[in-house]
């Protein structure tokens, strides 16, 4: 390490002569060594397998929907099947891909490395969390395979309990169990970041990924239990026919929406904050500049997590909620835009006069900024009471949240996956293919979802398998874009797997990045560091004056 000042000042004890065994080698290659592991790095990889599996299922559902929507008439699937498809897509993407994607895969892998710890605070809980996740996923798969669910991922009452005769109960049970997996992961991160930081690692020396992971964990821990109990109430109402939300028995469906969105709106920030964290790591590294306004970026993560709990009513503007309440929620929704905008400004200021390397992670990160801005700004449209009533339940909303969830989170996930791939596997991926895929995904994504803004504004409602013929042009564009997007997602799947065997061996720090995770071999030894690092320097000590040789595959 030459130009980038090493962030750590490991003590004077000479390194042990013997090469440390990597976490792949130590403990063996048997199936049992993986399924019973308490190593946070191995658990991160187990999560990666799980979420790729669920992503595939949800993506197939999306592909079928886009195929149906090529023609205005509902000719490929029945409306019932279409209802099931968008429920599978929504519920699986939200609970079994987006929420665990960055926190459970990348977070599990890098959080202890970044704070200079040997593992998370509760390694066995961490493993339990993976098992709970898969158990929940299994129940979800069961519901999908044996008939499906047709309520949409929101399970709105009283439809879900009184009218739907699909597998609501098993689906809800699956999400209930997966919720506890989220809670345990969040709990582990919170406690680890509080208690396991290496000597010298103060709160304001933490990498920004940890600030956003911490903020995410707050939401995971405090919002998820409310969803769990709400789902228990739905299941109880469905199984025993008691009235808690069913208006025929005196219940109030709007109360369901309050409780559901008390979780699900903050959950939207679970699905974007970690992506922001990854981008805050990648941007300084590939523009060779310290992050602009570290404290602002750090506190804006916490501010988003806190303010995110005050805005849920903006999903209910047309649900017979009181007007006064709607006004309060609308104003609070505008407030959340402030910390999000702070982040975008700080990232762009970091780029300004930096020495920019357009490597794969950086391409994804730049894509993230643009797409997140589109999603965020249309979010402000939707926070406005009048405009919201106009586009409520149309494709405008669909386009808005896909710009955040896919354009933001999936792009952020891919940025992080490519950024830490050499560290995770010890191999480099082929750089040119990586850049190509990033480009294809960006183009495909925009062709898929931009037309949906337009068609939504023109009044096409979401969740219908048939539509008026004048909307066909936009829908054909959208479906065409989706196939490009599909190719873009297949590419990394192929070349990343290829790189496991054939990729070049990665040095400890291919990007010449700061941060403790780059101070240890790739892949790291089981206990992460040969000796506990001591942190003496601020994070992101990059200098744009120096030309760096980044190592590529």
């Amino acid at each position, binding site marked *: 390490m030459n130009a980038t000042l090493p962030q750590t000042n490991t003590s004077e004890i000479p390194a042990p002569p013997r090469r440390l065994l990597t976490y792949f080698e130590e403990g063996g290659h048997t199936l049992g060594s993986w399924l019973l592991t308490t190593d946070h790095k191995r658990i991160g990889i187990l999560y990666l397998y799980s979420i790729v599996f669920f992503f595939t299922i949800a993506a197939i559902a999306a592909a079928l929907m886009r195929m149906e929507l090529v023609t205005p008439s509902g000719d490929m699937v029945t409306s019932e099947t279409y209802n099931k498809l968008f429920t599978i897509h929504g519920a699986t993407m939200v609970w079994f891909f987006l929420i665990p994607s960055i926190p459970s895969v990348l977070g599990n892998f890098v959080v202890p490395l970044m704070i200079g710890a040997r593992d998370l605070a509760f390694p066995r809980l961490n493993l339990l969390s993976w098992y709970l996740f898969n158990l929940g996923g299994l129940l979800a798969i069961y519901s999908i395979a044996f008939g499906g669910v047709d309520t949409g991922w929101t399970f709105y009452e009283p439809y879900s309990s009184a009218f739907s005769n699909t597998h609501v109960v098993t689906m809800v049970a699956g999400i209930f169990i997966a919720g506890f997996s989220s809670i345990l992961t969040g709990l582990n991160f919170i406690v680890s970041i509080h208690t396991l930081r290496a000597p010298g690692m103060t709160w304001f020396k933490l990498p920004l990924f940890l600030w956003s992971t911490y903020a995410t964990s707050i939401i995971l821990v405090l919002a998820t239990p409310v969803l769990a109990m709400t789902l228990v109430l739905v299941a109880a109402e469905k199984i025993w026919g008691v009235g808690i939300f069913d208006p025929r028995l005196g219940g109030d469906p709007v109360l369901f929406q309050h409780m559901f969105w*008390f979780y699900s709106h903050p959950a939207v920030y679970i699905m974007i904050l970690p992506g922001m964290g990854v981008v805050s790591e990648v941007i300084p590294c590939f523009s060779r500049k310290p992050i602009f306004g570290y404290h602002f970026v750090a506190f804006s993560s916490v501010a988003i997590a806190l303010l995110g709990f005050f805005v849920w*009513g903006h999903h209910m503007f047309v649900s*017979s909620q009181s*007007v006064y309440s709607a006004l309060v929620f609308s104003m609070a929704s505008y407030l959340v835009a402030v910390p999000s905008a702070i982040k975008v400004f700080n990232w762009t200021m970091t780029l300004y006069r930096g020495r920019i390397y357009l490597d794969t992670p950086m391409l994804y990160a730049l894509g993230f900024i643009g797409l997140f801005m589109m999603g965020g700004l249309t979010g402000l449209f939707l926070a406005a009471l009048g405009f919201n009533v106009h586009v409520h339940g149309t494709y405008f909303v669909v386009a808005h949240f896909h710009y955040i969830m896919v354009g933001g989170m999936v792009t952020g996930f891919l940025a992080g996956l490519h950024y830490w791939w050499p560290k995770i596997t010890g191999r480099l991926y082929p750089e040119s293919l990586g850049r190509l895929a990033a480009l294809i995904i960006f183009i495909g994504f925009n062709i898929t979802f931009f037309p949906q803004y337009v068609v939504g504004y023109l009044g096409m409602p979401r969740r219908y398998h048939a539509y008026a013929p004048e909307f066909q042009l936009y829908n054909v564009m959208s479906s065409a874009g989706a196939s490009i997007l599909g190719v873009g997602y297949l590419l990394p799947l192929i070349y990343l797997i290829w790189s496991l065997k054939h990729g070049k061996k990665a040095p400890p720090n291919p990007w010449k990045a700061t941060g403790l995770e780059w101070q240890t071999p790739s892949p790291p030894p089981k206990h992460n560091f040969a000796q506990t690092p001591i942190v003496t320097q601020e994070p992101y000590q990059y200098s744009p004056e120096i030309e760096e040789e980044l190592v590529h595959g």
Partner: protein
Amino acid sequence: MTPLTPPIVTRKTYFRVWIVLLLLLLLNWGLAQLDLGPFNLIAALAIAFVQMLLMLLYLMHARYNTPLTRIFVAAGFIWLVIMLDLTLSDYLTRGSVPGLMRKSWEHGAWPAPTKEPSH
């Protein structure tokens, strides 16, 4: 980071807290036998609150713990208040605008509750 020194609370303190808790229970039970109008509600909730505080502070050692732990103790309650508060902001202001409905079934989208559930 301030190292956590586990508090050793004397058995006498525990015993006193227990006596107060039981006396409060007795008081709470006694007050419920009288018809005090709205004060029944206020008294019962106030006593429950005091009992909760005593348990949190003494039995669960919140009083003897680090400020960090106390923040963790408070967080759950603060978030509960956020949820109750903002949901009530809807329910307590419903119907305060003329022409809008107080109860969600009044617009006729579904039947009003009947004595005989149709299940």
